């Protein structure tokens, strides 16, 4: 039996031989890597190497002023967890996260419904709610620092005569910072909610109206369930952002008074640059926070995926 008789008569006469096919596949793979290489380099230098640096530091005895002094495992992690403010900082960060998440999601939804319903002032309201989001967080914090100042602020005289200070008590410092954050971010979350609201088809509402559903029934039975993907996104954003809160506390309270507003990132900064000057322990704290964030995000995304499947 010859090879010619085995070949199907319909096979194309110019079909490439196996070595040619392999070299073309290699060329295509190489071309693919060339296309992906800028992004790959970006990921390596901007994400991977800093992450490796932090892991390396967290395993090393690394005082700020004298550089790497060699391996220091597991002491850095033990010292990080044993830090006298570690658990207080975690507790405060979680408390702050819960407060801001509830306020921002609630207010963002409320504002979105307001600007969606209002026809006459729609553009003005949308713009005015969104304008604070255009300001950098550090700039906004400095602005509020001056507003709250007992010397330069607009309420300075009033505050002094009443003996009141915005940032002087633990409660005052917490709620003054929460107010800043709500002012700064409510418009941004309104925008996200608005996108979610506008993605809900009109005919669903039309059908509800024909069925005689009240406004509350429509909101509870249609708007809230169909906003679930938007809630998933906003909650992940809000929780992650709040757990990593730093600028607002660094500028307004520096973690005080009495360490009452010490967030975990502020603690990392303090350990690295204010007092302890230990980059190794600060890096160990950073790794712990990173792992916690990964776990929290996994749980959040799984929870929302499950409710979506339901």
């Amino acid at each position: 039996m010859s090879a010619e008789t085995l070949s199907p008569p319909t096979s194309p006469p110019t079909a490439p031989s196996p070595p040619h096919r392999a070299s073309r596949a290699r060329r295509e793979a190489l071309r693919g890597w060339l296309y992906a290489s800028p992004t790959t380099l970006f990921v390596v230098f901007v994400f991977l190497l800093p992450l490796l640096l932090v892991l390396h530091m967290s395993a090393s005895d690394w005082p700020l002023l004298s550089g790497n002094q060699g391996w220091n495992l597991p002491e850095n992690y033990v010292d990080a967890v044993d830090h006298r403010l570690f658990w207080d900082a975690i507790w405060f960060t979680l408390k702050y996260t819960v407060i801001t998440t509830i306020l921002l999601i609630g207010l963002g939804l409320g504002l979105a419904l307001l600007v969606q319903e209002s026809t006459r002032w729609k553009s003005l309201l949308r713009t005015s709610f969104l304008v604070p989001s255009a300001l950098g967080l550090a700039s906004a914090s400095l602005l509020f620092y001056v507003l709250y100042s007992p010397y330069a602020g607009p309420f300075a005289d009033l505050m002094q005569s009443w003996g009141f200070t915005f940032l002087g008590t633990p409660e005052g410092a917490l709620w003054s910072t929460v107010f800043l954050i709500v002012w700064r971010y409510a418009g941004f979350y309104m925008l996200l909610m608005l996108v979610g609201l506008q993605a809900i088809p009109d005919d669903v509402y039309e059908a509800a109206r024909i069925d005689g559903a009240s406004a509350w029934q429509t909101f509870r039975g249609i708007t809230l369930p169909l906003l679930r993907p938007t809630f998933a996104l906003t909650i992940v954003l809000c929780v992650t952002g709040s757990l990593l809160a730093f600028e607002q506390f660094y500028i307004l309270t520096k973690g005080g008074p009495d360490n009452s507003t010490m967030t975990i990132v502020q603690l990392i900064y303090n350990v690295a640059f204010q007092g302890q000057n230990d980059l190794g322990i600060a890096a160990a704290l950073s790794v712990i926070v990173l792992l916690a964030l990964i776990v929290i995000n996994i749980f959040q995304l799984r929870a929302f995926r499950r409710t979506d499947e339901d």
Partner: protein
Amino acid sequence: MTNTRRRAAGWRAATALLLSGALMGLAGCAGGGAATPAEDIPAEGTDDGTTLTLWTRAPLEKQANLLVDAYNASHENQVELTVVPNDDYVAKVGAAAGSGGLPDLFAADIVYVPNWVEQGLFQDISAQVDGLDEKDQINQGHLSAGTDTDGKEHVLPFVLDLSMLFWNKELFEEAGLDPEKAPATMAEYADAAKKIQALGKDGVYGTATGLNCGGCLVFTWFPGIWASGEEVLSDDGHESLLANDAAKEVYDTWRDLWESGAVLPSSQDEAGPTWTAGFTEGNVGLMFYPATLLSSTPFDAGVAGIPGVDGGASTFVGGDGIGISKDSEKAAQAWNFLTWLMSEDAQVEVLAKNNDVVSRADLADNEYAAKDPRLVTINEVAAQGDTPVALNFQQAFNAPGSPWLELVRNAVLEGTDTVDADNDAITEILAQ
């Protein structure tokens, strides 16, 4: 299959190479430098037109500018000054020290100097300092803060800042107090503050302080303990003595003042940036205040040493020490700046002329001080002052949320009886 395995092995090798390269790179850039002895530097240094870099922190910006301008105008060398915000200074110095990028000269808060000397951030200038004719006249507190355990010297005083008792003479007169007489004890201090508070003037308070500012409290409350004949730290700087009777009396006095409403309310959350503003604006009767602000106080203010519980007077000899950094390759030129800094031209014609304290005892009684008796008072009290030395000073006292801040806030604002336990927490850090 073989190809896939080979490819995977290749990727593993490449990744391992990348990781090990990265780690080696990291290890390479992390080395700490040891201090290099500044040998073979002429007594006067070298003035050959070299450009030198100098860092200082913001609170001393005025004095640093005056000194640098005067030096640049009279020398071929030129100094480029960088003023760094106070809160960022340690981080900036630390980052530069780790990467070998420190400037030729840099000043450091004198309480940090022992630690920074220990870390090898300054060059050894013992031979040059010992060669100065006026060495015995230079402020000994600053010199000893820069001297390591082997007796090697590393810094000279840059600018001296003393904490003093300042009072507003106009408010004293209104309150029926003698405007020319300083309160001589802590009790008299409290009494004067309450009398000014009793005036009931809108926005005017008896006294003020920075109750959320560890550095301010160290600077202004330690002298009252020294003036009472007690110490704040053990000789080796490893133990806190801030639970002694005099210290407790100081806290109790401030507790009483706070409860009576005679303390500016914003003192409660004052973290440092505006802790002197109330007095400078004329709204505070008397307070412990930095002597460097004498020229910036726009009204007639009296000046005296900080009183102890039963009398006496003392001051915190603060400010900054300055040295040649471990990374400088222009040590001879940098020494030229330092030796000029100790000269009469710099001390009298720049610092004293601008109402600042001189660093040399033999120049304390100068023509400018004679015009303002308050400067003579400040110079006299400087001799009775002290500078605490501890390696972990920043962590124990100056850092936000330090155990020292907790001690003061518990004792003064909360009124809890936890001074002894809080003092132990300070010792725990000092002993590390």
